[in-house]
């Protein structure tokens, strides 16, 4: 029968797909931002079913708690009550887009079906709280030993973004920008 782990996966997967579709289809961007919040939370739940507890917490903090708040705030600043032209025009263009994404999805699923359908399922992890702390410590040690260079570059990237975002928001337009 459906064990509790399978039920969790199907429930959270269905939730993230439905609200993922909601992000794309809602005309009013505020509602698609709220659907994005629910998708992020259900994806954090999916990480939890995969025993990646620390990454689920980080996903909640970074995505659900910071990035999507920025989206909602910016949407509020724009005060867009509704959108008339939400989807791109042209039947042929949209048709080509839909067909190409269908082909892509077909390629994905045949590849997955071909290689992984007969594979054994996940080896059960040492359940309980202790394993998740050991997993977090493994993550930490490998982050600072094998991925140290990437870690420092990420710090640099964040510095560049901090400076860039502020100067970008101060530009009043025009090629020869004069101090506002």
């Amino acid at each position: 029968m459906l064990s509790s782990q399978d039920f969790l996966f199907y429930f959270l997967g269905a939730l993230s797909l439905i609200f993922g579709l909601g992000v794309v289809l809602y005309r009013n961007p505020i509602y698609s931002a709220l659907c994005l919040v629910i998708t992020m939370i259900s994806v954090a739940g999916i990480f939890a079913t995969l025993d990646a507890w620390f990454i689920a917490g980080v996903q909640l903090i970074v995505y659900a708690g910071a990035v999507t708040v920025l989206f909602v705030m910016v949407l509020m600043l724009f005060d867009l009550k509704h959108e008339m032209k939400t989807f791109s025009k042209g039947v042929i263009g949209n048709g080509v887009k839909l067909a190409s994404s269908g082909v892509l999805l077909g390629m994905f699923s045949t590849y997955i079906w071909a290689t992984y359908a007969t594979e054994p399922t996940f080896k059960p992890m040492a359940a309980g709280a202790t394993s998740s702390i050991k997993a977090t410590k493994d993550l930490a040690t490998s982050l600072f030993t094998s991925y140290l260079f990437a870690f420092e570059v990420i710090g640099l990237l964040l510095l560049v973004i901090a400076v860039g975002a502020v100067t970008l928001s101060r530009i009043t337009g025009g090629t020869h920008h004069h101090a506002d």
Partner: protein
Amino acid sequence: MPINPAAWKVGLDHYLYLSSLLFVFGMLGVLMRRNVIVILMCIELMLNAVNISFIAFSRYAENVNGQVMVFFVMTIAAAEAAVGLALAVTVFKKFREVNIRFFEHLKG
């Protein structure tokens, strides 16, 4: 389709199907929508789909590299969203309209 109970047991391929479906939804959103902010949200959706498959493989191969990679993907996604929205706000201030069509005025 015959529902054999064995197929319902969640394995690596179920996570990959979910991830590819979510990825295609995000891609469709990027292709079809005209509002810049919704396009940025759909890019976040695609990055989340990639994260799911990263974690699924990391859990399947029992090593932690996938999780470290997800850590970095999250940073890149957040940085991209921050700069993308800063751009969208500057365009909105100038054209009072947030539509992908106005972004070609940015070219030099």
